[in-house]
């Protein structure tokens, strides 16, 4: 007689969105691991059809309240590719500046309030605040600075409204932006403190052999554009994304999972992958901290919090440089005319590579849309990690193992709301 047991975490805490975890044990051995994403499907790709193409950045921004800029950036770049538009260097820089704001607010929240409690033994950021008030206050201050940058450049912190196909609808006056410089200089110091703080945590020994995937740009730490690269040797333009990666459905998730098309294997996107593939392009202080606090090869997913903190430092350095030289660009948009075409783009969202593809009609409406968010891409890798992690944590008992599994999932900073995507309905006649 065999012993079949199930460990269930019905609702993962301290992750964005709603998901659960199910582990099936057979005679004490791990039989199945399922990251259950049960948020309802969002159907964004379908509702975009027929809409004016310049509505797309505003609509796709609603996919996520934490990383709306990422959706705006990937969508406008893809649409501009379809329209044959080229950005001016000045507008391109301002888009990077906006992205810095999002990286800062998203990473600061996850590091300080969602993830750090795992390493310090607290059930929540609130519980942690009693013993580590300075750290929590620092996290809130960093997040606020990211939000202020979004407000200045994007009109507001959540779902900014200034991003347009071709550039921006409007840009702030120079004095509004210059007023941020002094606070961002202080923020950079806080960010460096945060990086040292998280690097001092005790990390489980869990180095694995990953294929890490991220955009790589020859001249900069990739945010808005680059070539797709992986630690396994992949190097291709973003236009080949769908030839190199495929999404597939699993019964237990409303989010599609993804794998490498050539090998059928899972892969990892996000800060750890970006640092692995673009370490030498980090800004000076971020680079120095990365070398000191996250030496190569950084293949322990629990250390993703250090990579995230290094990226906050980078975002402050880059933002400061751009803020100091900010001048409103006029006109703020490159003019364009509707035309039939297809375009794709990928940018680096806080959680990893975010791919968009659009086919647009001659009348300026969207004929087809495709969105592949980073959490979808990481799902299969998370399940693979859990299979390797469970035998190590099961001896401590199932209750403890469930908590340890949650910790591993949180290391990915999954955004389940972004990933909830598609539901296949099977009709059965009786």
């Amino acid at each position, binding site marked *: 007689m065999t012993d079949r047991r199930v460990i269930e975490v019905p609702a993962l805490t301290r992750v*964005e969105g709603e998901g659960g975890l199910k582990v099936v044990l057979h005679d004490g051995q791990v039989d199945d691991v399922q990251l259950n994403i049960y948020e309802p499907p969002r159907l964004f790709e379908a509702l975009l059809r027929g809409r004016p193409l310049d509505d797309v950045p505003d609509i796709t921004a609603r996919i996520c309240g934490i990383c709306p800029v990422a959706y705006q950036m990937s969508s406008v770049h893809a649409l501009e590719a379809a329209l044959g538009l080229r950005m001016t260097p000045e507008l391109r820089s301002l888009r990077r500046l906006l992205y810095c704001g999002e990286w800062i607010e998203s990473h600061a929240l996850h590091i300080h309030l969602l993830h750090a409690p795992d390493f310090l033994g607290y059930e929540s950021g609130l519980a942690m*605040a*009693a013993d580590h008030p300075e750290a929590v*206050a620092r996290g809130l201050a960093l997040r606020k600075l990211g939000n202020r940058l979004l407000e200045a450049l*994007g009109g*507001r912190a959540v779902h900014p409204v200034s991003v347009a196909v071709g550039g921006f609808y*409007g840009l702030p006056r120079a004095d509004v932006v210059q*007023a941020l410089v002094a606070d961002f200089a202080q923020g950079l110091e806080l960010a460096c403190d945060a990086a040292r703080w998280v690097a001092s945590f005790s990390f489980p020994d869990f180095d694995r052999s990953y294929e890490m995937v991220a955009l790589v740009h020859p001249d900069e730490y990739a945010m808005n554009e680059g070539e797709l690269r992986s630690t396994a040797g992949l190097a291709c333009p973003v236009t080949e994304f769908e030839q190199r990666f495929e999404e597939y459905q699993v019964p237990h998730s409303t989010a599609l999972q993804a794998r490498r098309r050539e090998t059928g294997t899972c892969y990892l996107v996000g800060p750890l992958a970006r640092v692995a593939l673009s370490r030498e392009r980090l800004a000076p202080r971020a680079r120095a901290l990365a070398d000191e606090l996250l030496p190569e090869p950084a293949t322990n997913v629990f250390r993703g919090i250090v990579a995230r903190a290094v990226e906050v430092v980078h975002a402050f350095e880059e933002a400061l440089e751009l803020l100091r030289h900010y001048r409103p660009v006029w006109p703020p948009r490159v003019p364009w005319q509707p035309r039939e075409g297809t375009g794709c783009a990928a940018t680096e969202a806080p959680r990893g590579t975010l791919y968009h593809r659009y086919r647009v009609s001659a009348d300026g409406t969207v004929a087809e849309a495709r969105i592949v968010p980073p959490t979808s891409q990481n799902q299969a890798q998370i399940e693979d990690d859990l299979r390797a992690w469970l035998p190590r944590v099961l001896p401590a008992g199932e209750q403890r193992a469930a908590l340890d599994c949650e910790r591993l999932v949180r290391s990915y900073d999954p955004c389940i709301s972004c990933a909830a995507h598609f539901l296949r309905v099977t009709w059965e006649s009786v």
Partner: protein
Amino acid sequence: MPAHQHRAASSQQSLGSAKGAASAATLLVGLGSPHADDAVGWCVAGAVAAALERHTNLPQRRALTVRQARVPLELLHWCGGASRLVIVDACVPLATDATGSQPLPGTYQAWRWPALPACRLRPATSHDLGLAETLALGSTLGVLPEEITVWGVWIAPERVLPPPGGGNTVTQAPSPNMARVTEAALSGGARFDPAAATRSWASVTATIDGMACAATATGCADADRLRAKLACQLSPPLRAALSALVADVMRDLFEQAAWVGHSPGAPADLPSPDLPS
């Protein structure tokens, strides 16, 4: 230095560095969004601010900061220097009580924190802390004023978002081109007609919200008019209650002994709120 004082000092050092920290004795925060009855907190804050703006000789206005917040965490950045915090927020009943009744939409009540109503009061989401969690966090960090009042306004659960036909769902078609409307708002008030825009924006309230904020950020003078229009989306019970609610909140603000430079006055002395028509 006692532990709690040290904690407050160190936390304020980080949080207080944010621009816009209030230096007034009282901080009034309307919490919510421009969507349906969730806008009631913003409406009250806007009405109080407008009333004080029209009475420039009132000494009290120097001691009051009025803000509108979308997420509770914002509060923690604004409390520096404030001795009192007053929050106005919509709340949704959790369920019918033992008697099978629920508070009627439009009724309201004030709680002295840490007491809070049993309701969905700006609940915690995976993206942010709820009001109760935020206040608890602020207390732990030692950054809250000593006195906190929460005005909760009961709304019906279905009024958290606008109803079909007047909602913020982007699935309804046909819709105006959001991009053009946004551009119009950002380009300045002269070309921007909120009345016409509101008629055509039935399906894109979310963008209207964005425009209001963007208009503020870019100095568009029509932001206030736009917000007033948005207040008109309140359901009839909320609209009926708004005038009395604003008067009660102002009475609460003005009659506080802690009020700087002001002796408590009779309600008749208070400026009348400027409510959207």
